[in-house]
């Protein structure tokens, strides 16, 4: 069994592209869920907003790629307002329901035949990322070239994606960290614990919640943009129902309400995923049977690993809800 290969995959996914755009999404989700207590279970919709925003620029709208950033942000703001307006004055659960529903509808719309002309249907959109890739080339990274050392050898294209992606993680991490230390952040943390107390002190709770929802959503849209640019295409299947939940799992692993947690958590999520996945693939090269009954074969590995990740989320919430970096004293979810 190639343990070396398993470990190599684990390490590469730990710092890899998936971890990177998940981290951006988790930073955004943290603003909403971790710091403000908003149950946004539809971060995938915001990610799709950003991804399709950049995807549509060249192929659908025929404009320069860089407008896509603005369009993605605009879509995200629109979504945030749409989801927030009916729900932010009500119980937290309503936002959860509406966000899950919205993510589902967004998914159905972008993969529909009816809106093929706008969103590319099940095939999605492609052929828009050359301007982005061009910047990398201009900076000296040949797409096909090999850079790095030992196991950290990447093609120019991948290296460029990683550089841009992790820079975005650093930028957003810093922004959120600064914001949460400001009086604005203080209000959000107070809202998370007790809205009425905050209202009695003269703050417009609804407005703050909306700000947090939209900000978190806009950051999420950048995660989608990164995904689209990195893959050089946008597919509806990228935004599966479970995407938000996996981002949430990553966030919980790292520790809610901690910026470090929102970055390291998704990295760990992917490392654990890669470890289990590679390990299983090593162990299950032939279908494992018990008599006539097939326990597991290689096509099952994906779902088995996700099953374990789901179990992991449950165990975390029961035994260590503050995750790796979280502060138990600050865990505002008990008794809510």
């Amino acid at each position: 069994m190639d343990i070396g290969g398993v470990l190599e995959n684990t390490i590469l996914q730990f710092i890899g592209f998936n971890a990177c755009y998940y981290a951006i999404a988790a930073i955004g989700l943290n603003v909403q869920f971790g710091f403000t207590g908003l149950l946004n279970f539809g971060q995938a919709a915001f990610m799709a907003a950003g991804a399709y925003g950049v995807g549509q620029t060249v192929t659908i709208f025929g404009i320069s790629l860089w407008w896509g950033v603005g369009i993605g942000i605009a879509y995200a703001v629109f979504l945030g307002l749409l989801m927030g307006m009916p729900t932010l004055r009500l119980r937290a659960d309503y936002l959860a329901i509406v966000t899950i529903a919205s993510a589902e509808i967004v998914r159905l719309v972008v993969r529909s035949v009816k809106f093929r002309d706008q969103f590319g249907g099940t095939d999605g959109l492609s052929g828009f990322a050359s301007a982005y890739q061009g910047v990398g080339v201009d900076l000296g990274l040949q797409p096909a070239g090999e850079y790095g050392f030992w196991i950290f050898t990447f093609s120019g294209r991948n290296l460029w994606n990683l550089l841009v992606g992790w820079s975005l993680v650093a930028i957003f991490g810093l922004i959120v960290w600064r914001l949460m230390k400001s009086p604005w952040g203080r209000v959000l943390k107070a809202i998370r614990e007790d809205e009425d107390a905050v209202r009695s002190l003269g703050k417009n709770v609804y407005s703050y919640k909306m700000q947090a929802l939209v900000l978190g959503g806009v950051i999420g849209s950048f995660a989608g943009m990164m995904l689209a640019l990195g893959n050089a295409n946008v597919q509806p299947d990228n935004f599966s129902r479970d995407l938000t939940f996996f981002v949430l799992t990553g966030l919980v692993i790292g520790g809610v309400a901690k910026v470090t947690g929102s970055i390291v958590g998704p990295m760990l999520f992917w490392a654990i995923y890669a470890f289990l996945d590679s390990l299983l693939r090593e162990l299950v090269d032939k279908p494992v049977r018990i008599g006539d009954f097939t326990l597991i074969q290689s096509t099952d590995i994906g779902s088995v690993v996700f099953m374990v990740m789901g179990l992991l989320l449950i165990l975390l919430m029961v035994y260590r809800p503050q995750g790796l970096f979280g502060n138990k004293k600050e865990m505002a979810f008990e008794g809510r």
Partner: protein
Amino acid sequence: MKDADDLSGTDAVDPTAPVDAVDAVDADGAAPRVQSDTALVARAALATVAPEPGASKPDPILVASGIRRSFGGIVAVDVDKFEVQRGSITALIGPNGAGKTTFFNLMTGFDKPNTGVWSFDGVAMNGVAPHRMAKRGMVRTFQLTKSLTKLPVIENMKLGATDQKGEKWWNGLFPGLWKAQEAEIEARADELLRRFKLDHMREEYAGALSGGQRKLLEMARALMTDPTLVMLDEPMAGVNPALKQSLNHHVRGLRDLGMTVLFVEHDMDMVHDISDWVIVMAEGQVIAEGTPDDISSNPAVIDAYLGAHQGRTLLEDQA
């Protein structure tokens, strides 16, 4: 004449002793308290008011009329006229189920009446959201203390300040824009914490404070909003007797600083001790008003409490 700024009481007080010890000292009554300037002014104004339900006050800060609130067929509140004299400490009392807390919630914007109008400081308040009321100078506390346990004490306090530039998200990123104001706010917060003898707990999470300390924190935090009217919802609920004198000091101190205080209470000692005026509710209506002396001899009030637990605190009721 007592100096209006001296809130430590006329009795000798050791400022470094923890709050509870201080109160134990004067709980058994040392020299009778001398009335402050503002107390005398308030009582003089109220002396001209007839002790009748719905009586008009010479300078009302809060005026309500025709307030009705019903829940599925049960009329919880039905108040014709309600006025609170500016600069006074007014108590709102009544037996359990009288509708005091509901009325309180209505006045502070945490509930909407079915009919009725009311105004604060001359400005109509119908349909105004609770946070706007606070901005206008009306602040309230809660019966179940809402000290934000996941925030340190000093952050709790700083949260109370209004018009903070740093609370706008576009400013949040640029500390330069709000650091100066934050420092001012922090200085004010520390001053208040010293006054309420909580400064030694400054960095602690509010969750680590005792119940009584949290009450004080909530009151101190409310003062950060620089209010004109302070509405206290059962401030003595669940407070140990040793702390009650301290709370009384602070409530009197509020009036002495020019604020008006309206509080809901079951604790008759507190009501007699510090209120300038008492309004009595029963079954949703105002049945009597007057000075504490007027009220204790009012047969209608005694009737309303007959069968209920007269003069005992909520805590004793539950024992």
